[in-house]
């Protein structure tokens, strides 16, 4: 079920503009601009070393970009003027009646999750293996709990306000566990789960932070076909029922093509294609990048592309 409207130009939740990331002499991302539509599943694809994870690291505050702006608009009516104003003011974010905007490149890691509402998972599984499945989900909801417990003192004394918050947190966690079929393993150590279940748990743990944007780094890696299908269902459910926008890096083209509303293709830190699954699939540049052709041939392909789809590429491009 692909949506026909172009959410990413009309109603972006995340706008990455002129992002550049250099590590010494190596340019990992080179003047990259793209938008992620609100309520879309957006896939970031590209050959190995294209800079996909680096983009994630910039968005989630792991890296400070060398240049560029990463703006997250929490609500729809955040205007461009408000964004310019915020950029000039030097502040990290503004929450006014003109809408909440967060400049992620100015924020540090835990604030991005706590205040802006961006959650992420990694390529490798990073669960808290020594804690139970349920506790993993409760850690993700600790901001609510800390406020309710008056910085722990209420929690120790078991005050009613904290109890209520704790029960609510547990309910949320149980709801998610039921959704991913892990309810019967709630009290087992997370490390004891099979691989596919750990992947699912990571995704719902990220969701327990109550994000508006969920960034998943290769969620289907190492899953068997049945598990990838379940993953597709879960991601669609997250998008459709919870209104969470999803940005994912994925190599499994079956997953990407089936669920993505919007695909961005990177190669050597540059965007080479941007559009719907159908548009990207037939883009000669993408094919060239994936099949690995000689430089000269790429030039040929690019010339072809400019002739054939030149106007299309600009329409789907950045601001």
């Amino acid at each position: 079920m692909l949506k026909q409207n172009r959410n990413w130009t009309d109603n972006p939740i995340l706008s990455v503009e002129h992002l550049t990331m250099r590590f010494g002499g190596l340019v990992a991302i080179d003047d990259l601009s793209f938008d992620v539509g609100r309520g879309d599943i957006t896939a970031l694809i590209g050959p190995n070393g294209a800079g996909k994870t680096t983009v994630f690291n910039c968005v989630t505050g792991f890296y400070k970009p060398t240049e560029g702006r990463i703006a997250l608009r929490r609500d729809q009516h955040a205007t461009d003027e408000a964004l310019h104003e915020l950029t000039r003011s030097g502040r990290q974010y503004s929450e006014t009646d003109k809408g909440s905007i967060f400049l992620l490149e100015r924020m540090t890691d835990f604030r991005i999750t706590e205040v802006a509402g961006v959650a992420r998972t990694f390529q490798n599984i990073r669960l808290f293996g020594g804690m139970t499945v349920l506790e993993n989900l409760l850690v993700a909801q600790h901001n609510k709990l800390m406020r309710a417990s008056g910085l722990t003192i209420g929690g120790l004394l078991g005050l009613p306000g904290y109890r209520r918050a704790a029960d609510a947190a547990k309910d949320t966690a149980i709801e998610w566990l039921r959704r991913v079929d892990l309810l019967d393993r709630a009290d087992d150590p997370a490390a004891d789960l099979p691989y596919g279940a750990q992947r699912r748990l990571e995704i719902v743990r990220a969701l327990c932070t109550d994000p508006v944007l969920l960034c998943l780094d290769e969620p289907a890696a190492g899953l068997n076909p049945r598990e990838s299908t379940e993953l597709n269902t879960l991601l669609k459910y997250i998008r459709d029922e919870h209104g969470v926008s999803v940005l994912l890096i994925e190599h499994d083209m079956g997953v990407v093509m089936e669920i993505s509303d919007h695909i961005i293709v990177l190669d050597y830190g540059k965007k080479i294609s941007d559009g719907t699954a159908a548009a990207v699939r037939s883009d000669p540049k993408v094919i060239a990048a994936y099949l690995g052709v000689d430089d000269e041939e790429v030039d040929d392909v690019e010339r072809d592309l400019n002739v054939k789809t030149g106007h299309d590429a600009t329409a789907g491009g950045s601001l």
Partner: protein
Amino acid sequence: MEYFLQQLINGITLGSIYGLIAIGYTMVYGIIGMINFAHGEIFMIGSFIALTVFLALAAIGVTFLPLVLLLMVIVAMVCTAAWGWTIERVAYRPLRGSFRLAPLITAIGMSIFLQNFVQITQGARVKPLPPQIQGGLILMNNPNGIVVQISWMQIIIIAMTIVLMAGFSLLISKTSLGRQQRACEQDRKMASLLGVNVDRTISLTFVIGASLAAVAGMMYLLYYGVIDFYIGFIAGVKAFTAAVLGGIGSLPGAMLGGLAIGLIETFWSGYFSVEYKDVAAFSILAIVLIFMPSGLLGRPEVEKV
């Protein structure tokens, strides 16, 4: 038999004090992988603060003992916690992310600084405190004149330790702060991605460790009746040993290690010679570590290849 019982009681008392200090070592190690060598000095500062409160209260004529003890414990915990927080903020946080040995060196520096600071401000002479709580329960009184007794002070120390340990275990296992603490212990980066304020959690770890050490410091003061600026060193080394013996990073391990070191020391002095009690404690540590490299309750580190 009576003699054994008496030594057992003494050993448990001493072990409780070591255990409370050892918690601070093991928690800090667990969360940032660093040995906080200044922790012994935190204990020493705790006992000095307790003494100061006692003298201040005596000067203004407050002598009702339960009130005095309560105020001593509260003020010592709060002020020592402030010290712990400040030390982390000033000496360790700026070095987070630099190479592993850097915070270790500042910890040693901090320890020397605190010792000298107390020596200069409080004087180098030992500070006595007349015994405040006397008497005790006579458990056994046999005709040969050997008496087994547990003093009120020992009861207070053991009871206080049990209460603190219970509260602390509850904090770690049941509250949100405890969960955050454990999460940071396992994967700091991931915890911060879930919105956990890692710096604040680390600060709170220091605060909790310091306040437990403050209670230990106060009980040391009341139990032995003399303190000086140097008590932190030996107590710190012993408590560190206890943490390693129990398995560093493991909280029940720290308590168990504390008890073990306390008992070894007491029994050795009771049955063999007082002079070699430290040798005995450290030899047993060495032997245990040869056969159980991760300590009594520590989890072995699994390295993925």
